[in-house]
């Protein structure tokens, strides 16, 4: 007679852990080609693309870019103007990049021809937080126009950041944002992080961002 039995099967498959493992693999791929990778995070319109454009123009590195977006061709097109290798990653419905998507993009990049890679994440302060990509540094870009309570409202992304850029400080007064409060809020969450106030329009802070990145790259 055919008998039925009940069985309990342990799975213990943590999707975050699986992503982290893939991220570690990505970092090994990057390290093998001596590429330093920066994950650039921030809200829509905070200035991520503009900052990467400024860094491409002002840093003496062989730079490559992974442009992640719901529809990536717009940002990818902006980077292509500078004759740097660009891979657009269409996330479609997804609100964040993950290590698996980045692994594919790495395969499409001439890694031996670059030494610095910017991975522009989808504009979002929430979803990308849990997903390591394998980058060496996480840079979060926010702007004063998002409101000076942005940091308090999205603490996790700042807690995990290695470098925070507070952009568009030239219009802080016009939008009624207290930029010093934003700096302090980041420091409260993440006492060791470097916070730089910038305006990509006036050029304020750009040199400091570049110096900070160079120092970390040299240490790596």
């Amino acid at each position, binding site marked *: 007679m*055919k*008998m*039925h*039995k*009940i*069985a*309990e*099967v*342990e*799975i*213990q*498959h*943590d*999707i*975050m*852990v699986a992503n982290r493992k893939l991220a570690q693999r990505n970092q090994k791929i990057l390290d093998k080609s001596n590429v330093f990778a920066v994950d650039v995070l921030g809200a829509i319109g905070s200035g991520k693309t503009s900052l990467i454009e400024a860094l491409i123009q002002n840093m003496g590195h062989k730079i490559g870019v992974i442009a992640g977006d719901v529809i990536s061709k717009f940002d990818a097109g902006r980077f292509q103007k500078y004759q740097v290798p660009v891979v657009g990653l269409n996330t479609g*419905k*997804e*609100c*964040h990049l993950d290590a698996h998507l980045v692994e594919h993009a790495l395969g499409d990049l001439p890694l031996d021809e670059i030494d610095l890679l910017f991975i522009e994440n989808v504009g*979002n302060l*929430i*979803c990308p*937080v*849990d997903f390591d990509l394998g980058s060496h540094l996480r840079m979060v870009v926010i702007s004063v126009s998002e409101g000076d309570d942005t940091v308090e409202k999205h*603490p*996790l992304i700042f*807690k995990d950041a290695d470098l925070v850029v507070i952009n568009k400080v030239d219009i802080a007064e016009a939008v009624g944002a207290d930029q010093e409060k934003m700096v302090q809020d980041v420091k*409260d*969450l993440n*006492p*060791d992080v470097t916070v730089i106030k910038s305006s990509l329009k006036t050029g304020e802070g750009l040199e400091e961002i570049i110096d900070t990145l160079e120092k970390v790259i040299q240490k790596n």
Partner: protein
Amino acid sequence: MHELSMADAMVKTILDVAEKNKAEEIIEVTIEIGKLTMLNPEQLRFLLDVLSEDTLLQGSKIIINEIPVEIKCNSCDFKGSTDLDDSDHYLAIVVCPQCGERDLEVTAGRECNVQKIKIEKSDEEEEK
């Protein structure tokens, strides 16, 4: 916000394991979600229901256990769970409950784990 992709990954994992274990029915699924993940358990449950339609998972009992936040303080060596305040549920990762300092590491609360499934299978298959 990304509950759909997470639910999709979970359903795939569950069905894969069920198939490998020759399950004829999935009775129960246990999932662990850390309280600090950007996942809403209710939305996740809804999407798991939607995605399990017409699969072995349809109608299974889904248990979602929320994992509390645990921190380690680098200033006073406090280690342990910390209460989440509903009105400011991130306060726990900001200030050490023991010494009030801010140099903390999160040691638990970011899980998104398919822990186990309870299945029904025939004994004959088991003996193979």
